[in-house]
């Protein structure tokens, strides 16, 4: 046990140190690098705290996708900030912030010991009715499926907002080291592992989000190598790509209403199948949306539809 305590202390110190570095390093580029490192250490932390789903998600999304986005944005971000506030003001606000943070830390420590609440007990009791054996997937796709549906809506609104803004990022020389050959190996591997993660989600860590994020990262790799081979998605296909996940989710959710049951109340015997169905569709949409989020703009100037005459009457 002793050795674990040491490891815990080390991990925590590392997390805090990297966070400070990512927040206060002098140059933006350094901060981004530290942030990516921070994400990786946090992924390890999740693993340590028995949260492998999160470790996967953090590594792919938190450190990977966000890091890639930040790196790409370095080009057009104006450089380091203007002259900061006066010395006294900074000391003052830091002192006040410090006191607040200390208070928060003390309050958090007063929360322990933590006991299982009624919902936690209910999850373990009713796991069998959820159709999947992995509890996190059961919570995400069944017990709290409404959260997940709305989360898809959040992703959709980010993607739509981005599509409305302007053209996508150009692929550029940032990742010159990532050679063509490596990418040729990496991309099929990523697609394969996405499928695996999706399938595995029913009984082990993994699922639509991780799988979708892996797919998106395949797209990122393609983009980074500067391939023009990223299949040119037509407008209609793009819309379908974004839609299929949420639409299928809603449709499956609405069906039980016909029987006078609740929204999203899957029949117990079909639950596993339906969840897999929803997850597959969601994975495709998530991949599409995350790719758009990464690209930061639309691949077609005339999103969302090809118009003969843009001023056509209603």
């Amino acid at each position, binding site marked *: 046990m002793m050795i674990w305590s040491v490891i815990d202390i080390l991990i925590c110190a590392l997390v805090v140190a990297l966070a400070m570095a990512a927040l206060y390093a002098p140059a933006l580029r350094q901060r981004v690098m530290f942030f990516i490192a921070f994400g990786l250490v946090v992924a390890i932390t999740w693993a340590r705290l028995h949260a492998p789903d999160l470790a996967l998600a953090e590594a792919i999304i938190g450190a990977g996708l966000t890091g890639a986005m930040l790196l790409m944005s370095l080009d057009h971000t104006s450089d380091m900030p203007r002259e900061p506030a006066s010395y006294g003001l900074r000391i003052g606000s830091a002192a006040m912030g410090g006191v607040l943070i200390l*208070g*928060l830390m003390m*309050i*958090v420590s*007063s*929360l322990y010991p*933590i*006991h*299982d*609440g*009624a*919902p*936690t007990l*209910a*999850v373990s009791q*009713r796991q069998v009715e959820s159709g999947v054996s992995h509890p996190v997937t059961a919570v995400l796709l*069944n*017990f*709290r*499926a*409404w*959260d997940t549906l*709305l*989360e898809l*809506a*959040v992703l*959709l*609104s*980010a993607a*739509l*907002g981005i599509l*409305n*803004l302007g053209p996508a990022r150009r692929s550029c020389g940032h990742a010159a080291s990532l050679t063509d050959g490596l990418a040729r190996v990496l991309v099929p591997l990523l697609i394969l592992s996405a499928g695996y993660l999706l399938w595995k989600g029913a009984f082990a860590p993994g699922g639509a989000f991780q799988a979708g994020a892996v797919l998106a990262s395949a797209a990122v790799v393609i983009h980074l190598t500067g391939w023009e081979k990223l299949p040119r998605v037509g407008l209609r296909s793009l*819309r*379908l790509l*974004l*839609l299929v996940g*949420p*639409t299928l989710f*809603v449709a499956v*959710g*609405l069906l*039980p*209403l016909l029987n*006078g*049951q*609740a*929204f*999203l*109340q*899957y029949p117990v015997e079909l639950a596993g199948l339906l969840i897999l169905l929803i997850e597959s569709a969601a994975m495709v949409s998530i991949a599409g949306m995350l790719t758009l989020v990464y690209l930061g703009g639309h691949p077609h100037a*005339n*999103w*969302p*539809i090809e*118009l003969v005459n*843009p*001023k*056509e009457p*209603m």
Partner: protein
Amino acid sequence: MSTILIVVVIVPLLASLTCLMLPRLSDRLSLGTGLVQLITGGLLIQSLASGISHFHELGGWSPGLGIALRADALAGALVLLCAIVSLAATVYARRYFTCVETRYRFWPLWWLLSTAIYALLLSADLFNLYVTLELLGLSAAALCTIGAAKTEALRSALRYLMLGLVGSLLFLAGVSMVYAEYGTLSLMALAGQIAQTPATLVALLLLSSGLLVKCALVPLHFWLPAAHGSAPAPVSAVLSALVVKVAFYLLLRLWFELFSPVMTSLFATLIGGLGAIAVIWGSLRALTAARLKLLAAYSTLSQMGYLFVFIPVLAALPDEETRQLGFGALVLFALSHGIAKAALFLGIGVIQLQVGHDRIDQLAGSAQRFPIAFFAIGLAGVALVGLPPSGAFLAKWSLISNSLLTGQWWWMVVTLTGTLLAAAYFIRVLGAGFVTLGPEAPVKGVGVSLQAPALVLACLATFGLGLGAASLWDVLAMGSAGGQL
């Protein structure tokens, strides 16, 4: 299982997806969706008034394990408000965005925002509320950028987004503390359990400050004027009328239902004090604003301030019955402001669209050129200032009366000062618009469907809510029979 709650939240989501799928149908589809929402809202409030309480366990799981949707009278009243305002704004947006491509980009996001609002109003789960808040923030920020290639609009949208994120983060921190302390996220389960512990107090502060950012209470207000002042008119209308309002709705739920054991009179007075500053400061800024939309945005700051001034007065009321009445006045004020502010923004949008700007010192001739829109602006002004027969007048009457009753006359002074200032900034607008131009021929006429929504809303705020307010109290009394309030 109340299927009507599912209709309320799913119809806009489906509308969003369908508008994305079939852009060419989206104009007509949106109109239909708005109508359906209005009918649903009406049915919901009607059934609530007859004493039926609505509850839906999503996935069939009991609350705690799953997420529940529920509607009491307060939620029902706000659902109806949102349905009314968004229908008006939808009709308006069809004419406002003259470029068809812009409309096609607008509708899916518009209905996502709507989804977020309804999901938030009906949600009975703390974490689910966090997700709805994020959906609200993201879709609203994305909408702010529609059709605008202006630096100003993009910059304020970005600031709006970032502040929204900070607010959500604070809220999430509060949620996690609550979960650690009580082991559940269901509002119903929490309501009976909340006790006076230090962690609960901190959780309350975190949740409240997160929401206060979104309500733009002074001193967390600085993002609002730019964001509301530079978005397209229908979006501004919904942002000012609904988006800040639903954040306030959540605060009401937290303060009066969940955390009532932790709410001290000191806390209430502090909140009221900030509200009072917002009332005065917002009005003063509105008085000196150079543009109409900016004036309207500052007016939102000040009007939101009143809602917070209600809090200490309500908290000090001695018995349950008068508090119930005072609470009704608060809800009435929120509804009245929502509808009137939407009318104001829609009316301003007409002028801005036709004249090409909304500078107050160049408004001369507006009263002649856009009689309907200008009349709507005037009527909305009546409701915003709180003159009879508007709903806000009744609410202010109650606020003043209660502040005298509880011996807190200073809230009355704030209310009256704010009212005078509000009158002053509206007189400024009316005066500028009434100045006639020379004999040169007026510009082409403006379509009725662009002007009518503003007028309908303004009439509703000034006459409808004023004369029909009594039923609100009836509904609130019915709806909260089983609740905490």
